[in-house]
């Protein structure tokens, strides 16, 4: 499927156009209802146009598919070039799916500046699809940076009491990280005379140059993942962001960091990557173990899930740097699964926060007595977060641990600790919030899920179970691209 198709452009521009229409047609607060409906239609349309990407995807090739190539800035050979392979396609779908959920999740909750809120999410959705689809480095960079703006606004405008601090921290952290990446992109352009990312896979580079490029890219993507010790923006951002912001941040934004490792660092500077494997694996293990302990003692549910995200993303970077198909497939599966599970947990916290206006674990207890349906859903997501077999969380963790044990038993053992720690912090939180006697009058007065909330959580639950019980379609999509990419990474450029 390499003929002319416009699905990727549609995936990028339909949500952005919908966002602009929402702003223009229903920008005033009294048009909130119209804004919601336009946003929902736009988000659903944005999701529908991505379905052909999956249905028509050719799993037998690692070449870019649904390719579009147009001149953009010819003087510097910068193109509007998009395409997806098995590594990026699942994330375009995941992102577009999540956008529908987020628009729906904010339906009754967001009451001020509704159009602006919806528009920010729609525009960000398009930009993030652009990040996954761009095959031209400058196009990638533009989408990568532009994406910061709506997220900054979402946290800064609709966030909690400390939102300005969190938004600024998020912005500065990610911007500072990515500035060095721009230097790296420009250097690579002067070396190769092109901004086509795939061409850079073939450019010979000295080890010292590779290490410098590695550092430049690493800073940008490690902040986004986020890896220890550049992770502290994430808990703050999550705590202050509105539910929808947290969902997108956890489900998609973090994945972009990990995607950068797979698309840029490993194939462009493979020798530096191999030289610095120990360093990255050490940081990943610290993220898995140290952050797991930090998550255990959090008092704020959102902060706990944020730390849990960092710990789970440690698995992704670990998987990539094991240099094996199992590790890569595990890492990618973990990325998709974490997209569903962390999003679901943030939605769950959102459901409780909307009723109690508190995220503190100590304010809850015995919620199952008043919200049994909700408790059942949250149980499933808590289990998935702990990596229980049958849920999506198991697939990625299992593959990465398997790959790690093949490299070194103790590496696999340390990675396996996450199953214990993950279960400890997730289930302990679940126990304190959901079980026990009804903690106070406010918990006693809680009402179970509304129909909207029920179907919202049911949609994610279905995805979590489907991926856990039948991961084959996802693995099939990735397999050839992963095998090819690993062959690419195995080649020395010296």
């Amino acid at each position, binding site marked *: 499927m390499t003929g002319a198709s416009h699905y990727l452009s549609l995936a990028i521009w339909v949500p952005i156009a919908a966002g602009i229409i929402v702003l223009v047609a229903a920008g005033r607060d009294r048009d909130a209802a119209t804004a919601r409906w336009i946003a929902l239609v736009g988000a659903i349309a944005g999701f529908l146009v991505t379905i052909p990407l999956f249905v028509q995807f050719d799993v037998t090739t690692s070449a870019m598919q649904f390719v579009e190539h147009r001149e953009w800035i010819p003087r510097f050979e910068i193109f509007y070039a998009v395409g997806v392979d098995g590594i990026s396609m699942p994330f375009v779908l995941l992102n577009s799916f999540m956008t529908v959920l987020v628009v729906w999740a904010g339906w009754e909750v967001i009451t001020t500046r509704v159009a602006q809120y919806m528009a920010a999410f729609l525009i960000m959705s398009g930009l993030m699809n652009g990040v996954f689809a761009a095959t031209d480095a400058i196009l990638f960079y533009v989408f990568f940076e532009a994406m910061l703006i709506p997220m900054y606004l979402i946290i800064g405008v609709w966030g909690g009491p400390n939102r300005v601090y969190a938004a600024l*921290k998020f912005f500065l952290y990610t911007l500072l990280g990515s500035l060095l990446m721009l230097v790296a992109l420009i250097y690579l352009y002067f070396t190769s005379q092109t901004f086509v990312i795939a061409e850079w896979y073939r450019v010979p580079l000295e080890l010292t140059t590779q290490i410098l490029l590695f550092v430049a890219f690493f800073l940008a993507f490690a902040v986004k993942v986020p890896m220890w*010790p550049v*992770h*502290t923006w994430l808990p703050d951002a999550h705590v202050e962001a509105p539910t929808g912001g947290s969902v997108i941040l956890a489900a998609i934004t973090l994945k972009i960091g990990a995607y950068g490792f797979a698309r840029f660092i490993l194939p462009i500077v493979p020798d530096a990557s191999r030289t610095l494997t120990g360093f990255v694996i050490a940081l990943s293990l610290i993220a898995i173990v*140290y952050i797991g*302990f*930090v*998550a*255990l*003692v*959090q008092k704020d549910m959102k902060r706990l899930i944020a730390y849990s995200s960092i710990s789970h993303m440690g698995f992704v970077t670990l998987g990539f740097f094991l240099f094996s198909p199992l590790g890569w497939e595990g890492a990618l599966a973990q990325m998709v699964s974490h997209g569903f599970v962390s999003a679901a947990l943030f939605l769950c916290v959102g459901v409780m926060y909307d009723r109690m206006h508190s995220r503190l674990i100590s304010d809850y207890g015995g919620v199952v007595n008043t919200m049994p349906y909700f408790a059942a859903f949250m149980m499933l997501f808590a289990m998935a977060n702990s990596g229980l077999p049958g849920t999506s969380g198991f697939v990625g963790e299992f593959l990465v641990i398997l790959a790690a044990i093949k490299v070194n038993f103790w590496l696999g053992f340390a990675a396996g600790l996450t199953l214990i*720690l993950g279960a*400890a912090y997730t289930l302990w939180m679940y126990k304190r919030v959901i079980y026990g006697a009804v903690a106070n009058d406010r918990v006693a007065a809680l009402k179970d899920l509304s129909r909207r909330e029920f179907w919202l959580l049911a949609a994610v639950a279905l995805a979590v179970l489907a991926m856990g019980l039948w991961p084959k379609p996802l693995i099939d999509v990735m397999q050839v691209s992963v095998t090819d990419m690993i062959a690419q990474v195995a080649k020395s450029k010296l």
Partner: protein
Amino acid sequence: MTVPLILLAIPSIYTGWTYVEPMLFGDWFGSSIFVSDAHRVMSEMKEEWHGVGAFIMHGFVSPPFWLAVAGFGAAVYCYLINPAFPDRLKRAFGPIYTLLDQKYYFDRFYDWFFAGGAREVGDVASEVGDRTLIDGVMVNGSARLVGFASAVMRHLQSGYVYHYAFTMIIGVFVLLYWWAVR
């Protein structure tokens, strides 16, 4: 609870009675379970097998059955015939009673060592590692350092021409000195 227990008991008896023979000595599992020739446990057991009835009757002469009966008897004596007896026993064997009552203290130990230890490690990692070192010193510390440096430098910009002139003269002296010494 009685009815569910009865309902569970009926299929248990039926299944055990009907399937014990084909499962253990028949072809029930096909080739799914393989017994190595070196350990011919099943065929040796088969030599001692004389049908379900004999199997049940044999149960009555084996120690586990009589131990169970003894347990039942002890319970009847302690809680129906002589309810004061357990209390006397408890006083006579105080420490042993406590040890058993506390499940050899394993749960307490696990709670203190693993759960408590993990929380302790988490507290240190969260407070010292994340809040103080990373967020406090590295992140906000670097911002504060810039703020502090600017606050100091600000005083140099006094707006008086003679301050600037003196600074320049001092600068010239420093440069000359450096040039001369070199």
